[in-house]
Structures are given as structure tokens and as C-alpha cells.
């Protein structure tokens, strides 16, 4: 073909990342079986690698992948069904009885997210399935991100998919009555992926950026699929605003830099603008929720040209709202940071002393800082020690050790 632009491996990789989840979700609907869907999509991408470099990118790469996956899977299932393979027979029957996709195809991805994050599955399984099926990450990649052996992660995925199949976890968007609870579980999984990437709970670098990027991609997808759910927008805004500070959050040597000491010129203005626009859209809706309020808190930080200009009163007001909407010891702990800025470290320390957070490293590091500011050096050193003992992240540990050493 003359003047046909060559398709590079990078471009195919990009299509894979962008369209894998969509293709798998359509094929799960067609065949009623996750393994068959995954294998079919994998087959189709293998075919794309063979064909596209010579033939050029098809007009609709996603459509090509889905059609190819479907046709190849049906051919393969027919061969297997003729050898009395019951799973193949069932999948073929399912494909035959499946009505042509009505409504927007995007609903398939929504179904798949709710299946992956079904409460009958453990959190670790929900996270792994979501990254595997919607994110297209390989088992090896997920295992590396969560620092477990690949065999363990493979086992986790096999077991979860087995439970979905055998216990018949449904493939649908939950009914209205169940939606709030079920959506909470989905958002929790996405935020957990983000947090795991942001402050990797263990490992040698502070940020595992690919997990953050994947969580934001999932957040964007949810916002596209459920634009009328304010908490979905709130979560996306929250992640974007936190992510905007990533360039300033550690030094070239990988050392942790606190918000107050960050070089704000390094903050990503595009992400901030996008996050703040979402926060404003949420405010107009006036259905506050925990993610929206946390996003608003981060938006206030983003507004301040320097740390001293931070509107801590506004932040304290927002934390009071957060505690009213979603009371939790962790939120109370973060509120205390704002209390310290507005009213001083003594009332802040009073506010956290009763919190049942002895196993949470941030509790000890925030407490240590408040004790330091009150001149209670010995107690501060002990609190830093407690925080150091609880962190598995090298950059964070180094930061805490420096803080303790600075006590003199």
C-alpha cells in the first residue's frame, strides 16, 4: 500500500493499553467467561502485531481487535467443542444466545469493574483483577508492583476468576439500591491502587509511578462512564491534585520533601487546573462526599503560591466537614495538622492523643512533629522511632531518620 504510514510496536502497545479493558469487557459479555475473553484478546493483539505493521492501522483499532478476538475465539471454541469440551460448548452457546450489544459498548467496562470489585472477593483480589482485566497489566507487572512473587499473584488471580465463574458473580452494573455501597468498593480499589503507587508501602523508591498512572486512568474511565456520580469526580480530582505535586515530592536522590518545603514551581499546572475544575463542578452539585472534600482540601493547597500563604482556616473547615460526612481516626489525624497551623501544636496534640492509630506510621510522625514544636524532644524522638519502625519505604524511613537526628 503506497503512503501507508508504518505502524510501530510503540503504537500497537499504545492501542493495547488504551483498548485492552474495552476489548476484554466486550468479550466477557459475549462468551460469559473471563479466561476465554482474555485469551481471545491476547490472540487478537498477536494478530495485530503480525498484520498492522504491513497493512497499516485499521480505521477502528478497538473494533478490529474485538471482531478479530471474537472470530478467532469462536473458531477455536468450535474445534474444542467438537472434542466434547464442555466449557467451550457453554461459551459457544453463550455467544449464540447473546443479543447484539445494545446501547453503548462502554457499559461493558462498567460491568467488568463492578465484577472485579465485587464484595465477595477479597481486597487484594479486587485490586489484582482490576489491574489485570481493565488495565491490561501482566501478572508479572502486578506482582512486581505489589512486591509479591509472581506465582503468588498468578494464584490469586486464578482463584478470584475461579470464584467468579463457580459462584456466579454476576456481570452487570448493580441495581440502584446496591449502587452506593458497590460504587464505594470500586472507588476504594482505585484509590488503593493510587495510594500504593504514591507512597509505596514498601520498596526502595517513594513512588511507583505506573500504579498512579493506572489509577488515574481508571479514575478517568469511571468519570467518563458515571459522570453523574459526584464522588467519582471527587476521586479523580483528588488523585490529579496529589499527582500534580509528584515532581516536587522527592529530591533527585529520592529523598522525601514535605509539602511545606516543596518547590511549587515544579507542580504540574495542567493537572492542577483539571483537578480544580472538577472540584468546582462538585461544589456546584452540592452533594459532598469524602473524596470530594479531600479533593477540595488539596485544591486549597494548590491555590497557595507558597506554604506560608496556605489558607489553613479553609482547610480546617473542610476537615470538619470531612469528619461530619465520613468520621475516621485517619481524617481526625489529618485535621490535627490543620489545627496546629490555625490554633498551635498544643490543641492539635490534644486532638490526636486519644486516637486508636498506634499501628499507623503517619500517626507517630505527625505526633513526633507536634511534640518537637512543643519542645518535648525526648518524647518526639520516641515518636519518630515508632514511625520508623512502622515504615517499609526507604525514602520515608530516611526522612524520618533525618527528622529524628535534627532533634539534636
Amino acid at each position, binding site marked *: 500500500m503506497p503512503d501507508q504510514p508504518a505502524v510501530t510496536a510503540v503504537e500497537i502497545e499504545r492501542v493495547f493499553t488504551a483498548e485492552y479493558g474495552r476489548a476484554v469487557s466486550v468479550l466477557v459479555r459475549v462468551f460469559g467467561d473471563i479466561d476465554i475473553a482474555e485469551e481471545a484478546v491476547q490472540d487478537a493483539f498477536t494478530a495485530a502485531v503480525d498484520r498492522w505493521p504491513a497493512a497499516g492501522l485499521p480505521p477502528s483499532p478497538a473494533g478490529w481487535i474485538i471482531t478479530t478476538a471474537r472470530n478467532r475465539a469462536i473458531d477455536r471454541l468450535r474445534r474444542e467443542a467438537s472434542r466434547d469440551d464442555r466449557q467451550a460448548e457453554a461459551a459457544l452457546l453463550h455467544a449464540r444466545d447473546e443479543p447484539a450489544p445494545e446501547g453503548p459498548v462502554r457499559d461493558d467496562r462498567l460491568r467488568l469493574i463492578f465484577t472485579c470489585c465485587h464484595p465477595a472477593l477479597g481486597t487484594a483480589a479486587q485490586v489484582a483483577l482490576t489491574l489485570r482485566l481493565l488495565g491490561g497489566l501482566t501478572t508479572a507487572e502486578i506482582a512486581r508492583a505489589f512486591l509479591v512473587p509472581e506465582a503468588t499473584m498468578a494464584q490469586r488471580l486464578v482463584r478470584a476468576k475461579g470464584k467468579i465463574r463457580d*459462584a456466579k*458473580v454476576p456481570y452487570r452494573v448493580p441495581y440502584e439500591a446496591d449502587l452506593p455501597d458497590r460504587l464505594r468498593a470500586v472507588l476504594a480499589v482505585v484509590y488503593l491502587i493510587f495510594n500504593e503507587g504514591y507512597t509505596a508501602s514498601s520498596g526502595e523508591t517513594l513512588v511507583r509511578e505506573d500504579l498512579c498512572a493506572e489509577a488515574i486512568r481508571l479514575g478517568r474511565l469511571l468519570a467518563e462512564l458515571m459522570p453523574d456520580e459526584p464522588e467519582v469526580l471527587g476521586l479523580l480530582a483528588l488523585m490529579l491534585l496529589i499527582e500534580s505535586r509528584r515532581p516536587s515530592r522527592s529530591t533527585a536522590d529520592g529523598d522525601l520533601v514535605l509539602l511545606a518545603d516543596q518547590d511549587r514551581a515544579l507542580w504540574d499546572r495542567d493537572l492542577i487546573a483539571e483537578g480544580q475544575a472538577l472540584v468546582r463542578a462538585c461544589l456546584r452539585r452540592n452533594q459532598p462526599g469524602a473524596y470530594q472534600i479531600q479533593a477540595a482540601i488539596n485544591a486549597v493547597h494548590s491555590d497557595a503560591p507558597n506554604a506560608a500563604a496556605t489558607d489553613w482556616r479553609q482547610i480546617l473547615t473542610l476537615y470538619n466537614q470531612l469528619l461530619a460526612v465520613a468520621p475516621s481516626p485517619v481524617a481526625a489525624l489529618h485535621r490535627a495538622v490543620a489545627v496546629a497551623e490555625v490554633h498551635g501544636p498544643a490543641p492539635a496534640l490534644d486532638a490526636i492523643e486519644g486516637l486508636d492509630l498506634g499501628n499507623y506510621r503517619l500517626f507517630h510522625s505527625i505526633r513526633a512533629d507536634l511534640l518537637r514544636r512543643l519542645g518535648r524532644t525526648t518524647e518526639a524522638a520516641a515518636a519518630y522511632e515508632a514511625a520508623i519502625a512502622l515504615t517499609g519505604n526507604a525514602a520515608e524511613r530516611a526522612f524520618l531518620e533525618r527528622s529524628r537526628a535534627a532533634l539534636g
Partner: protein
Amino acid sequence: MTHYLLSVYQPDGPAPPDVDLTQIRKDLDALNDEVKAAGAWVFGGGLHAPTTATVLRSSSGEVVITDGPYTEGKEHLGGFTVISAPDLDAALEWARRFAHIIAPLPIEVRPFADVR
């Protein structure tokens, strides 16, 4: 349709004095009637104490009979219901209602293999 086993595990020994067994029995009967009316009921019932169990095991053609139960623990299977449901969510919906009645005891939901 898939069949699901809904089983209730309870601590060994008599029920605590503040538990109104008569009321629980009544509520369970009412819910079982509802399950039946919905066409989802397959089989079920409460079991006598594990001390009434007998265990048989065949070894080289000989069956040895022993006084049960098979597993000694702090908890035992107190009763179960088998229901028929289109998917796990439907089964969980019934289980949720059982859980309210038998609170704070847990209820386990498990699919049967190969039941049509």
C-alpha cells in the same frame, strides 16, 4: 440456576441466656416460607448438637464406626439451607436476610458444583 449452600456456624455449648431462640425459630420459619414462595427453596433445616453425630470410615473394606463429630472445634455447623438462585447476588440477598435473624452468628454461602 445455581444451588447455594447457606450454612450457619455456631459456638459449641448452649445458647447465651439473652438469646430468644423461640423468636429466632419463628423468624427463620417465616423467611423459609418466603424462600419457598419465591421458588428458591431446595432443602434445609437445623441440626441436633454435634454430640449426636456418628462418623464412618472405610479402610481396606472394613467400615469403622466412631462416635462423632468428625472435627472437634470451638464451632460447629448448626444448620443449613440449600437455595436455588440465578447468580451470587441473588443468593447473597437471601443470605443477608438470614444473617439479620441469626446475628451475630455468621452465615457462609457456597455454590454447589454442577447442579442445573
